[in-house]
């Protein structure tokens, strides 16, 4: 499993406004996300167990949660740049 994204670098430039450069330290959110994730995972495991015992066909909420975290982790390296003649937005996940 790869490391989660640590920094979100956001640049907004406009011909009419002052350019904005935001450096968002995502790594500060990860301890909180980890705590919430553990609680959510515990709930999902219980829900899956109940669904399984009830004979429901779909009982994969815990796997869905883990895979969602994996997908978030894989966003590292993503770059989105949108620009026109008047403004430009640049977002980089590091």
């Amino acid at each position, binding site marked *: 499993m790869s490391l989660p994204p640590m920094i979100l670098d956001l640049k907004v430039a406009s011909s009419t406004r002052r350019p904005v450069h935001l450096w968002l330290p995502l790594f500060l959110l990860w301890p909180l996300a980890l705590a919430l994730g553990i609680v959510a995972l515990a709930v999902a495991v219980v829900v899956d167990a109940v669904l399984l015992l009830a004979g429901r066909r779909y009982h994969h909420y815990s796997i869905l949660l883990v*895979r969602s975290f994996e997908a978030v982790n894989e*966003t590292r*390296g*993503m770059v989105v*740049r949108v*620009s*026109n*003649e008047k403004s430009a937005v640049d977002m980089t996940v590091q």
Partner: protein
Amino acid sequence: MSEDRSRILNLLADGKITAEEAERLLDALAARAGSSATSGESAIKGDPEPLIAALPKYLYVKVIAVNGDNVDVKIPIALVRSGLKLTSLIPSKAMDQINDSMSAHGMSVDFSDLKPEDIDELVGTLREMEINVDAKNGDNVRVYCA
């Protein structure tokens, strides 16, 4: 099992590379081992990092419009793979809603039948894909992996 071989297999197990790419890397390793064996050198030297590094890791989408609206997106292929894996776990009712919404917007793609082996094949094919669209009005769209 050699260290190189196990590293490639670990990359495959982690979903970093597809089965097809792993096969290609193992073939390359075997070829290298074969050539060094005939020349009397030790079987496998070094690591497969240069081979792995040569694989495309990002999907690029570039839109250059005549009116100056430009879009440039770089998506890690691992994210595409994770996203596709995620679709196979979405509850069927939610998946039906997604499929309906997509077809309402002109994209009739059914992700509900996507199997893990299909995902590997899809990602493998994606790495070799290149789309170039030159519109009449001069707009240009490029989708490729590098």
